[in-house]
């Protein structure tokens, strides 16, 4: 490797050889550009934001922003508003995705159904919001069909409220949850289930005793990754929600602080609180995961 000083061939291993023995050679250096990008564009701004959040725009105590956030119910309530949307959406998506993934796993031609179920990824939250305003609106096909069938006597008030955001998030995030779940479900060796079936276990018991323990660690990761997406619900909360009140999520509060009040310090503080809440949920879920079975799921030898 050219970065090392000149090699002394006669006496002992050279610096290059010593470094190589520890796994540091030219190939390892390939990781550097990536680390530089991550540090410059993620770590540095993050630390800068943390620093900025302790330096309030109007001056004063370092914790002013945080005190303001937690003492002002208009701001602090956004944590609850966000969790009240993100947690049920993520859970519901997992509960829908698991049974469907189990069915799709058995299909011969999965591709078409998978493509249809993944379709909402291409829509993006903005198009889903726009579509929901139409479809679930008072003159939309959904309302019309239900009224025509006699299920409803008057239009439902789905859009411009909690349920509008809830549904649009379920639709937008489902493909992602489903793909990950399907990937974990198909990764489990089917012979494990066949063995249980041979021993006379009912389908419910096979799911409970064989699949669920193997699947839970993967589901925990799926939960975390889906939760991240549900947690930063900016567009749908504004477009199909009630952004001044029931769906004023924490990202709206952060956005308004930054780009409407131009108080980057408060905005950074809100962003940091948002990150902290998110990390607490991830740590709780992944921490619970260590209590579960962790081991090979693909092949059981022995």
């Amino acid at each position: 490797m050219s970065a090392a000083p000149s090699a002394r061939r006669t006496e002992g291993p050279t610096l290059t050889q010593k470094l190589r023995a520890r796994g540091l050679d030219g190939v390892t250096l390939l990781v550097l550009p990536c680390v530089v990008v991550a540090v410059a564009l993620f770590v540095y701004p993050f630390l800068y934001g943390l620093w900025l959040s302790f330096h309030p725009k109007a001056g004063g105590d370092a914790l002013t922003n945080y005190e303001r956030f937690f003492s002002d119910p208009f701001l602090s309530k956004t944590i609850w508003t966000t969790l009240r949307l993100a947690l049920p959406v993520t859970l519901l998506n997992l509960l829908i995705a698991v049974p469907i993934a189990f069915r799709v796993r058995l299909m011969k031609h999965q591709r078409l159904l998978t493509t249809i179920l993944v379709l909402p990824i291409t829509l993006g939250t903005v198009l889903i919001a726009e579509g929901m305003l139409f479809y679930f609106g008072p003159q939309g096909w959904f309302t019309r069909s239900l009224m025509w069938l006699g299920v409803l006597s008057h239009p439902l008030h789905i859009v411009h409220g909690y349920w509008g955001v809830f549904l649009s998030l379920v639709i937008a995030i489902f493909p992602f949850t489903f793909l990950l779940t399907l990937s974990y479900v198909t990764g489990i060796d089917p012979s494990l289930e066949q063995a249980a079936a041979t021993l006379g276990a009912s389908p419910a018991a096979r799911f409970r005793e064989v699949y669920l323990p193997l699947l839970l660690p993967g589901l925990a990761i799926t939960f975390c990754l889906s939760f991240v997406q549900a947690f930063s619900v900016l567009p749908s909360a504004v477009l199909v929600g009630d952004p001044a009140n029931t769906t004023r999520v924490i990202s709206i509060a952060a956005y308004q602080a930054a780009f409407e009040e131009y108080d980057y310090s408060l905005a950074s503080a809100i962003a940091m609180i948002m990150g902290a809440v998110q990390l607490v949920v991830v740590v709780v879920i992944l921490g619970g995961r260590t209590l579960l079975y962790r081991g090979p799921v693909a092949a059981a030898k022995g």
Partner: protein
Amino acid sequence: MFAARTPLSTRLWVAGVWLFVAFFVVNLFGLIGSVLTSSFATRWLGTWLPAGFTTKWYFAAWDEFQLGDVLWVTFQVVGSVVALSGLVGVPAAYALARREFPAKKAVMLLLLLPLLVPPVTYGIPLATVLYKSGLGGSLAGVILANLVPTVPFVVLVMIPFIEQIDPRIEAAARVFGASTPKVFVYVLVPILLPGVLAALLLVLVRTIAMFELTFLVAGPGSQTLVVALYYAVFAAGVRAVQSIDAMAVIYMITTLVWLIIALRFVNPTQIVARAKRSNT
């Protein structure tokens, strides 16, 4: 397979699951269909179907929202993000897959964090830094912001791809005297190409749809299609709703084409684990 002795409860459960899938798909198509129909409608108020059909909204949307410019910006942003995250991510994934070195755990954590923290959380400090350095609102700023989640994504998708390639193939090339760049160009690139292509196509779809980061960083001249669409819906009422829908349809088609191409290369069920299909 063994339908004859499947108990009733199981059959009811299976039927219930399929019924739910059907319900989901019908409503999904209804939702997309509403936007699609509206974008071709002349006038659509309080009826099942619009009074007439026209394609004029597409031309209207193209002029009103300067879609030509927006698409060109989107193309530049997505192209640069895909190329840069490939150039930075694939070599890093190779190093992480092949070498054990002291700080490897720390590097992996550094790459996982951007995927575990919501974009708005790091997007706001990042936007602040970019505006301070004069890059905020510019095309370069949008590209840089979009690299934050895509580079780790490429690395984490590529590591398993590279790990499954037998290192003896590279060793053989080295025995015959190939240097590291030559091994890369003549041995690794051809083997890795399917994996790289798959990862980059997913990056492409993600970047077209990435709303939060672009929204926080973009200025008037650097909006991608999804951000322009958001502003159009947000400021609805000024413009005809049909031209917004026409724009939404253009957006959907742009992502849909790439997603279908991506799904041809990537088996979606094998993202985290190699599936084992039994033929019994």
